[in-house]
Each structure stands twice: as structure tokens, then as C-alpha cells.
């Protein structure tokens, strides 16, 4: 009988370890999410740019190079807006802050809140592309028929590799139904 009990104790120990391993791996699955983001942020893979405003540093401009920055804007399906950049491209000096406007218009009959998600290509350029001001940092609300100019101020880092001469900045506007509902509740309450 004591043999059996010993066996049971030994089994219980292994089971405990294995259950811990299971819980750990479940956590690891979730940990992959921030790890993925950190990995993309550090390496600038996936065309991700920082979603926070960069500090404006003392101006240190490389007057020997031109970088062409192209702009595109697109809408996720089920987003009833019109959205495009005011200019399709501009030439900038690395290190110099530049400003570009996007123009968005809500063509639906409802007030809508949207989120803009930026992406830079080529992906390697993403970590040399910083924004000091951007409509993508916050949610944007447009009332029915409203048109708005949305500014972006960006700096192309002067350390950007020599082989990159053209950078494309693209925004996709997503409809954010949850936020729209929230806002309309607030405005109803204010009435």
C-alpha cells in the first residue's frame, strides 16, 4: 500500500509541473502579442511607425540629400468617408520637419468616428520616420457632410540609409462603430 502511495505522490509532482507548464505556455501565447509589437517597433519591420508624437529635437538638417515622400490614403470597407492627401508627394531634406495635409469628408448621413492607421514602406524606412503631430494619434470624428483638413508633421531621420530615396506614407481610415456609439450617447445626453 505504501508503494502505491509513493507512486501517487510521485505522479502528483509530475502532474503539477506539467500543469504549470501548460499555464505558462498559455501565458506565452499572450506574451507573443507584446513581443511581436516590440519586435516590430525595434526593427521597424512591418512598416510600423511609432503611435506617439516624437519630441522635436534641435534642427539638424542634412542639406546634401533629397528624400521623396509619397502620400496615399485609403478607406477600410464600411467606412463612408472620402479621404485623400492634399498633395501626392513632396521632396524633403532629412532632418527637416515638414507638414502635409490630408483631407477627409464624411459623405454619410451619420456622425462617424474613425481611426487612422499609418504604415510606411519600405519597411526598413519605418524606424527613420517620426511624426511630431498626426491625426492618427487620436480618434477623429466627422459629422454628416463635414470636411476637415488633417495635418501631419513628420521628420525623416538624417540617418536613413543611403539606398532609400523614396518613402511612402500610407493611412487607412477605419470605422470605429464602438466609439461612434459612445460619442452619440454623450451628445444625446448633452441635449
Amino acid at each position: 500500500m505504501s508503494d502505491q502511495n509513493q507512486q501517487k505522490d510521485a505522479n502528483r509532482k509530475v502532474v503539477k509541473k506539467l500543469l504549470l507548464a501548460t499555464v505558462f505556455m498559455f501565458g506565452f501565447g499572450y506574451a507573443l502579442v507584446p513581443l511581436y509589437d516590440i519586435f516590430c517597433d525595434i526593427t521597424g519591420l512591418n512598416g510600423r511607425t511609432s503611435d506617439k508624437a516624437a519630441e522635436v529635437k534641435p534642427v539638424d538638417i542634412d542639406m546634401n540629400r533629397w528624400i521623396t515622400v509619397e502620400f496615399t490614403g485609403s478607406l477600410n470597407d464600411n467606412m463612408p468617408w472620402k479621404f485623400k492627401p492634399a498633395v501626392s508627394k513632396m521632396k524633403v531634406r532629412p532632418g527637416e520637419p515638414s507638414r502635409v495635409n490630408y483631407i477627409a469628408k464624411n459623405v454619410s448621413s451619420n456622425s462617424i468616428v474613425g481611426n487612422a492607421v499609418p504604415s510606411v514602406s519600405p519597411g526598413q524606412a519605418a524606424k527613420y520616420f517620426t511624426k511630431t503631430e498626426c491625426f492618427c494619434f487620436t480618434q477623429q470624428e466627422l459629422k454628416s457632410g463635414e470636411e476637415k483638413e488633417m495635418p501631419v508633421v513628420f521628420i525623416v531621420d538624417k540617418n536613413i540609409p543611403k539606398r532609400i530615396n523614396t518613402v511612402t506614407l500610407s493611412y487607412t481610415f477605419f470605422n470605429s462603430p464602438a466609439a461612434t456609439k459612445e460619442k452619440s450617447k454623450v451628445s444625446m445626453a448633452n441635449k
Partner: protein
Amino acid sequence: MSEDHHDHKPTGIGRWLFSTNHKDIGTMYLWFSFLMLFIGGGMAMIIRAELYQPGMQLIEPDFFNQMTTLHGLIMVFGVIMPAFVGFANWLVPMMIGAPDMALPRMNNMSFWILPFAFGTLISTLFMEGSAPNFGWTFYAPLSTTYGPASTDYFIFGVHLMGISSIMGSINVIVTILNMRAPGMTLMKMPIFVWTWLITAFLLIAVMPVLAGVVTMMLTDRNFGTSFFEASGGGDPVMFQHVFWFFGHPEVYIMILPSFGIISQIIPTFSRKKLFGYSSMVYATSSIAILSFIVWAHHMYTVGMPLAGELFFMLATMLIAVPTGVKVFNWTATMWRGSLTFETPMMFAIAFIILFTIGGFSGLMMSITPVDFQYHDTYFIVAHFHYVLVTGALFAIFAGAYYWLPKWTGNMYDETLGKIHFWISLVSVNVLFFPMHFLGLAGMPRRIPDYALQFTDFNQMASIGAFVFGGIQLLFLYIVIKCIRGGEKATDRVWEGAEGLEFEQLPSPAPFHSFTEAPEVK
């Protein structure tokens, strides 16, 4: 407490519902897998019937998508995995000289979760809207933003399957680590036990990640999180990374136990010891470890940086080395052996050849630049059916023929077994080989229609499919016939058989075996 039941079997339905006997639970796993084989196979027949001709013939495109999705999920989680767990239940205790599995009640529970898991999954076919229709890989946003309402049932089903597999593998590991007979050192264990030990560790490492990814889907769909939703800062490509972090080890979970089965069968019918036992153990472990660093070869086309593509390409190619060691060892075991060709041996030899073909097409796809052509074509379909049907499923057939006499006490009908083998062998190649050509010519997978020039090869594949599907009914008949009677099997069963289950137990194996630990030399 329960020392009084020597060879007393519980009777009636209770014997099965409340069973804690590893042999009964193993039997239930195997029958469950068999039932699922016919359900999943029936779906494959529907797919092949629709693809017999170009244009839309029999079913709606959306139903076609549901069929490919459920066929994949059922075959992976409902047929191959439970069949191997069934083998593990039957054989691991007998092979290591243990009286039963270490945790018999948990064993019962991990089996009985399965019918509910698959009941939930299959019930989605009868729900309003549609069953899951996004492919067995359930990529976001197809399964999140665009998934039908029934996706939540699918998620619940996957959770249940995960719990069942994790409990099953905990049981296998505890049994192998703690219950071996005195003298049965780790390096004396039969290779089948080794491969299952490693498989169980893989399951514990990746099934929780699968549970995590479906939980993220669940909260994305219902509770406003944005793991995979770009408008909320998530990323659908991340879904693929997390899914394949589970998915690649998963494909080895489906093949390692079959390596074990083949490594038991080849020496028996070659009447020689397995060539390179320890290199087999190390090769299996290296395959398992490498499986964690190759996942992105499933997604070369998502736009990874060059360094990433190179890393995953080279790591993937590296896996060919331990796999090559295995194939070499099996061949070397047969070399100058005194071979006989009973049905299990025939399936085992077919496994080696056809699995190697599947391995080679895998090697082709590991090369990043050419994979851009193969990606999401029928070439991929050909590849994974070669490794899963002529690989895993053939190993299951081989193992079933090999151990059926030990399980039932009766020999199966050798003539019928041979017929089953030859018709399966020919038809499975007629079914899957043309798919290589279709894929190289550009036919995409998961599409119910195709361009006219693909008609001939598709008709060949469909005819092969109907024959291969139909002949499995003969296998069902052979198994039933063997259970009901036939020539009595000797205790050794096969002239060259080795291992505790053949050397120290009668045929059929008694309900309770090794209540006294056997002596291991």
C-alpha cells in the same frame, strides 16, 4: 481498495462510460477516430465530387468552403490525433510493463470530452447562417470580422479539444516517467514510447498557445479587444504568427507517433534489431526542437524582411537532416533482413516511400523564392496529403494490422488486408499525385471552380478519391471480422516480434496486464 477485481470486467454501457481501463479507453479512442474518418472522409468526397468538373455542379461555394474547413479540422483533430492517443493508451502501459495509465480517471475524462467537442463543431453545419467557412487555419480577419455566427461554437469546440489533448499528454508523460517496470531504462524503451513521450511534450507546449489564439479570437469577436483588428491597433498578420507557432509543432505531433509505429513494425518483419536506436531517439528530439523555430515558412508571402525569410528557409531545410536519418535507419534495418510482407509491413514500406515523397515536396516549398509560386496552390494540398494520408494514416493502418491480433486474439484476414493495401496504395496516388501538377500549373486551393485546362487531372484525382474513400469500408469490415473471430493468434503473433506486449502477454491481452511488474532484461 480495488485489488479484488482480477479479471472482472464491468458490463453494459457503464463499462465504457465510466471506464478507467487503458485498453477500453484506447479502444474507444480508436473507434471514435474511425467514425470521424468516415465523417471527414465523406466531406472530402463532397469536395472531390464538386471538383470533378469545372463550373459549379453540386454545391454552393459557401458550402464548399464549409466542407474544406470541417474536413481539415476533423481529420487533424478528430482522426489522426485521437487515433494516436488510442495507440498510446493501448500500447504504452503494455510496452513499459505498467498495469495501467498513471491517471486513469483523467484518462476517462480526456476521452469523453471529445464527443462533445466534435458534436459542437459538427452541429455548426445545422445552424442558421453557415458553419465555419474560413479554412482549418481560421486566419483573421476571415474568422473574426467576417466569421459566421457559428464561429463561437467552433472556438468552444477547439477549447475542448485542447483540454482533452493536454490531459491526454499529461497522462502519457506521467505514465512513461513514473510507471516503467524495474530495469526499463529510458534508453531501453521501445521507439514508439519514445516518440509519444516527445509528442506529449510538444502537445503541452503548443496546445495552450492554440487555446490562447482562439481565446483572442473570441474576445476580438465578442468583447471589443483588437488583437487582430487593425482599426484598434492590432494586426491580422500576427494571427498567422501565433497560429503557426502552434501549427508547425502540430504537424510533428501528427507524424512523430507514426515514426514510432513504423520503427516497431520494420524490425519485426525484417527479423533484425532496429538499426541505430539511439540515433532514432536523438533524431526525433531534434525534429521536435527544430519545429519551434520554423513556423514562418507557412507564411513566406506576408512580406517578411529578407533576413527573416533566409532564417526560416535554412532552419526548415535543417529538418530534412534528422528526417533523413530516420529514413536511412529504416532502410538499413531492412537491408539484408529476412523480410516477409504481411499487410502491416506493406503499409510500413509504402509509408517510407510515400512519406519521403511528401518530405521532398516539403523541401521544395522550404525554398523561399520558389514557394512564392507554390503558396496556396494544389501543390501544398498534394504535399500535406502525402505526409498526412500516406504518412500518418498509413502508419495508423499499419499499426492497426500489426497489433489487432494482440488486441483481439484473432488474426485479421490476410487476403482482405492485402486487397485493402493494394487498392489503397494505387488509389491514393491517383488521388494526390496529379495535385502536384495542378499546383505547379497554378490551380489555387480552397476554390470550388477551376479553369478548363485543369479538368483532366481533377477528374483523375476525383476518381482516385472515390476509390480510396470506398475501400476504407473494406477496412472497417476487416476490423469487425477480426474482432468477431478468425484464426487464433499466437502470443508472439509475429515470428520476429519483440517487446513486452508480445513476449510476456498472451493474445488477446488480458483486461488487466502487468499487475505484477515484469522483469526487463
